[in-house]
């Protein structure tokens, strides 16, 4: 390479270097803002491990009614349930509007199964249909559920629904059945495939950084780092259930 060409190349590379650095910085900031920490897919047949503790962090500064409603709609489409606001309709996920009695401050948040470390639904289930996977995801085995609804009585979050009528249009990955109880699965089928829950994907597409999914056991994960730095809270923390869903800004 001639000196002239090298000089020209150096000029170009300096410009490219600055542009590249800016792009890289933007990408890193965006990645950090998106706070997406894709889970590694498990190999077929590999059991869920207690090494992981899957959790969600919801930033209420970025979540509004629009984001909540979009998450609920995405959850319905992903898992094949519908709700028209009827008291018999299931709600795996719902939007709750809150108003502080003292200050009048208003907050909107999504509420779903909190995937507790000490889930009361699992404790009370008479047939072990309600169970917690080693990685912290709380599920209902539809083949064991007898529809006694004791888990619905025990859940502090009103996160479970009863199926009142015959269901149609079920998803292969989210079986449902009349007479049984159901709730948010944390999109376990997506997690096992190394993807984020659909609500996280939807919320972040609308408001980057609104929801974060990741491994709370991995101290190096984005969610763990965020949880260790920000003021996060668990709903009804006083009950000692250690939910896997955390809220920031409540």
């Amino acid at each position, binding site marked *: 390479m001639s000196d002239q060409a090298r000089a020209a190349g150096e000029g170009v590379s300096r410009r490219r270097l600055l542009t590249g650095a800016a792009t890289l910085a933007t990408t890193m900031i965006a990645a950090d803002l998106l706070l997406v920490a894709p889970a590694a897919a498990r190999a077929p047949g590999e059991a869920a491990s207690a090494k992981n503790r899957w959790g969600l962090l919801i930033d209420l500064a970025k979540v509004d009614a629009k984001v909540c409603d979009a998450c609920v709609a995405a959850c319905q489409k992903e898992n094949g349930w519908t*709700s028209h*606001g009827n*008291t*018999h*309709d*299931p*709600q795996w996920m*719902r*939007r*709750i*509007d*809150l*108003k*502080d*009695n*003292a200050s009048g401050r208003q*907050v909107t948040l999504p*509420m779903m199964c909190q995937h507790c470390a000490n889930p*009361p639904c*699992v*404790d*009370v*289930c*008479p*047939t*072990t*249909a309600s169970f917690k996977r080693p990685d912290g995801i709380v599920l209902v085995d539809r083949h*064991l*559920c*007898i*529809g*006694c*609804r*004791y888990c*619905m*009585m*025990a*859940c*502090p*979050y*009103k996160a479970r*629904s*009863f*199926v*009142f*009528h*015959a269901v149609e249009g079920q998803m292969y990955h989210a079986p449902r*059945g*009349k*007479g*049984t*109880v159901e709730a948010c699965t944390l999109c376990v089928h997506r997690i096992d495939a190394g993807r984020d829950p659909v609500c996280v994907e939807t919320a972040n597409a609308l408001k980057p950084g609104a929801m974060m999914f990741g491994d709370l056991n991995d101290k190096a994960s984005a969610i763990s780092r965020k949880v260790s730095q920000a003021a996060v809270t668990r*709903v*009804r923390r006083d*009950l000692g259930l250690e939910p896997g869903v955390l809220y920031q800004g*409540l």
Partner: protein
Amino acid sequence: MTELTFREIEGRSISYWAWLGVLGVFALAGMGSFAYIEFAGHGVTGMTNQFVWCLGHVISIFMILSGVGAFVIAAAGTVFNRSVYKPLAPLAGLIAVALLMGGLAVTGFDLGRPDRLTLAMTNVNLTSTLSSNIMRYQGFIGLVLIYLWLLMDWRYARWMKPVAIIAFLWSLSVSTGVGLEFAFLVAREAYDAAVMAPLMVASSFMYGTAVVLLVVSVAFRVLGRPLGEKIINRLKRLLALFVAVGAYMVFVHYLTMLYGAEHRDMVAFLLVHGGAVTLTFWIGQVLCGLVLPLILFYAPAFSRSEPAILTGAALVLIGGLAHMYVVLIGGQAFPLDLFPGFAASSSFGDGAIGSFQPTLVEMLFAALSIPIAGILVSLGIKFFRFLPESLADEVVDPHHKTA
């Protein structure tokens, strides 16, 4: 003293078959309702995602508690050497089993998937009160049946007392278990209290004794068998004591809830502005179930009158149903407080008082436990020697002196 003998009823009269027919009609209506709910789904009942345990649970838990309480009378003669109750032991044992089976039938049929009921016996969860209660129910029925057999087969009389003591202790564990089913619901303000367990034990004594008193009185009058006032008065005194203890438990329950500021809104809802729930509490549970019976049992003007005693016993049962309604429906109507200090609203009833509207099919279904228990008792006294030939004072009391 006249010798105590037991004899089956003839059971051939028109009135007997008419009685069975009436019970059969209600049983068929209940079974038809069950089939309809099973086919159409629980959406045809008043149940919602807010009210998940409804009329079926109101009546079935009442029946289970009544059955457990009835066993007190069955065991009193053997366990506590109260010989005056010995003539009632077989009948009270039969009533205990019948009430429990009636209640359990509705509990089982009320499941979303009753076809999977056996899973509750094959997939036991030891941390579940419901799971352990299912074992308690089965054990209780088994122990009472053994006790009934021992009462009738004197070859093994030496086993009677040990079995009666075990069955009595077991019965306490059943009613305690029913209370714990609620007490362990930590997030439900109306239930999360240890007093729920002794409250249910006291309630079971109340309801069970009232049922035995009514059945004995009605059966002996209808059958024309001698019935002295001594046994009725003893049952009345026992029932009055249980009602007083029950009233105390209810008082303590609400007092403890009122003390903590966090529960005051919920208690205000139940006691002041809960609409049908508040009315049911004051008129049904307190007035009918506690105050009026205590007046009828203790006021000198009524306390020796058999109609007044029977009215008091019937009121105790009405109060018991009201109690279960307030506990179950009232407790679920008040919303879960997920965010203390915030006013919450959502499309899922968060922050809102729920409104329970039962349907006719649900009422017929829930009432099924009553004809089931009635038929079992009616057939039991026809085929087995459960009923004494006489409950005249000289039969009941060995020291009775005729005037």
